[in-house]
Structures are given as structure tokens and as C-alpha cells.
């Protein structure tokens, strides 16, 4: 998916998950899918990405947060204050975390699918806060490669 930031024009390669964090240069969350042939059109024709978005019929992709699953904090009015506090604190995005699975509480999990796609190694974080991890060493201990047969002389 070659995408360009609609604000500053920074280019993101095929299959890049970087755009999920917003543009690395300007933080803008809107991106336009650009065909290979039109990759440098904005520079050549001195147009902004937004103008190109208007001309081509491609829809501008806006990276949105996945809505939180309903938890107890959204249900009880007493706990609303703490939920608001939690929001104010900048949270590390799921795909940016070191852990593969975060156990927020019994039966409540946050999964880092980007990490899961790369390996079977499991780092588990316990509790809603950063900085406490359980590392599953067994998942990281790969089987030793079988020794190659020595050639017979």
C-alpha cells in the first residue's frame, strides 16, 4: 500500500504499518493511496496531496483508533473519573509495544498482532500499566538445527 501523507507528502511503502501511528514527520493521520505511476505527481505538478486526492477518486484513509471494548469503567458512573484520567495519559499504541499480549485483568487482553505475525515468541505484560513483563523463555528457545551430515570420504 504505497501511501502519502496528505499534509506533508511523506511516502510510506507497501505494507507499511508505520502509518498506523500517524505520519512520522508531521503526525497527520490522513493518508492517500497513490498508484506507482502517480507516485511523484505531487512534486512534478506542484500540487498538494489533498489536491491530488480531489482529482483522483481515491478516498483519503484516516487512521482511526479501534474503539475500546466496553469495560466496567464505562458502565459505572463512579469510575468515570479514573477512565478520563487514563485517557489523558498518553498510552503506547498496541503495535508499538514490546509485549505480545497484555493481560489487563482476568478475561481482558490486548494483543499485538504485528508481533504475533513475526514470531511465536511471547512476552506477556500483566496489568494495565507499562513496565511489568513476563517473558516466556520456552517460546524463545528454538529447536537446535539438526547437525548436517558429514560427507563420507
Amino acid at each position: 500500500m504505497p501511501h502519502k501523507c496528505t499534509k506533508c507528502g511523506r511516502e510510506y511503502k507497501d505494507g507499511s504499518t508505520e502509518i498506523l501511528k500517524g505520519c512520522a514527520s508531521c503526525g497527520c493521520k490522513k493518508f492517500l493511496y497513490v498508484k506507482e505511476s502517480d507516485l511523484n505527481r505531487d512534486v512534478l505538478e506542484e500540487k498538494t496531496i489533498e489536491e491530488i486526492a480531489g482529482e483522483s477518486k481515491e478516498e483519503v484513509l484516516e487512521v482511526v483508533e479501534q474503539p475500546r471494548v466496553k469495560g466496567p469503567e464505562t458502565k459505572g458512573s463512579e469510575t468515570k473519573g479514573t477512565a478520563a484520567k487514563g485517557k489523558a495519559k498518553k498510552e503506547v499504541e498496541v503495535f508499538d509495544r514490546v509485549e505480545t499480549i497484555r493481560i489487563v485483568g482476568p478475561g481482558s487482553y490486548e494483543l499485538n498482532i504485528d508481533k504475533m505475525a513475526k514470531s511465536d515468541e511471547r512476552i506477556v505484560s500483566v496489568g494495565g500499566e507499562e513496565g511489568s513483563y513476563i517473558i516466556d523463555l520456552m517460546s524463545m528457545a528454538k529447536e537446535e538445527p539438526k547437525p548436517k551430515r558429514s560427507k563420507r570420504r
Partner: protein
Amino acid sequence: MTTFSKTLGKAKKKFSIFLKRFFRKKRTRIGIYGPPNAGKTTLANRIARDWTGDAVGPVSEIPHETRRARKREDIVISGANGHTVTIDIVDTPGVTTKIDYHEFLDYGMEKDEAIIRAREATEGVAEAMHWLREDIDGVIYMLDSTLDPFMQVNIMMVGIIESRNLPVIIVANKIDLPEAVPSRIRSAFPQHPVVAISGLEGRNTEELYEKMIQSFA
């Protein structure tokens, strides 16, 4: 004479088994991926029923009904022009970044049961990702066309599939519902073939089968 013909018959049989094993066509293993409740099992059942008369697994309106990957092997799909493709269908658990048991309580589930479901669903996501990395040759990415496709998990999954260079067909499901907007999915993923279907009613599945022959053969 009879014993000779019997031995010859046995030898022929053994030889044909050997030949079949030796020249067996490698099947294409297709994973049906997507967020929970997109209709993955419904489609897997539809494909299995249409081509083998069998089913893959149970469906439910409660998310994360499929918590273990299920496989149906040797499905031969044939198209209008006589081309065929032999596939194994892998129905995978819905991939998501957050699983919370409170979600299941809304469906009248008991707390203990809901917690177990959440645990199993988490393991299911890990299993689905393991399959994607190790054992999948092509992907059908299912989306509910009544929902916004621009979700982080979808963009991320399509990105992961692209980075692994796997052929992908995006399916805009649930077009039987009045609020379905499959065009939104087309504009979200213009780089991939998108087929709008109703897995439940079987609408437009012929187009999907043709696309599968083109992409996975």
C-alpha cells in the same frame, strides 16, 4: 494362474498408490481471515457445502465463536471455463487487538464462561497468526460491509499479508443487510480484488469462486 493374477493386481495397486503419493498435486492452503463476526465460518461452511456437501464449524452471533483454526481439505472448485483449483480451507479465529470478557456478558453469558471464552479467543488469535506465518498460501480477508473498514486491525492485517507476498481476495460480506456499503471497502483497499457477497444467502459466491480460481490456481 489365479495366484499370479492376484499378485499382479496387488502389485498394480501398490504401484498406483506410490504414483499418487509421488505426483500428488500440492494443494493451495487458503486462510479465511478477518475481524470477529465478519462471517468467516459462514463462508467456510458455504464453500464446503457447495463443493463437498459438508460443513466446517458452528456459527454464532456472539463474537469469537471460532476459537481454534478449523481445516477442510481437498476442496475442488471449478469455474465456468472449466478451470479448477484444489484448496484446503482454513477457517481462523477472528483477529483483533482487544479481547474483553465484558463484551460477552451483553449476550447473556455467565462471567466464568465469558472469561474462559476470552482466554480461548486470545489463544485463537495467536494460533491464527501462527498459521499465517507458517502454513498459508493465500488469504481471503473477510470484512463486514456494514462496518467502517478503516480500522487499525484491518489495515495492519492487510499490511502483514502484503508483506508476506500472499495473494489476497478481500470479501465484502453481509450485502444482504440494508446498511451494507461494499463500495467503502473497495475504496479502502483499491490494490486488491474485492468481491461483495452474502455468505448467509449465497449471493454472488460464483464471482468469488471465479476470483479464487484466478488468484489461487
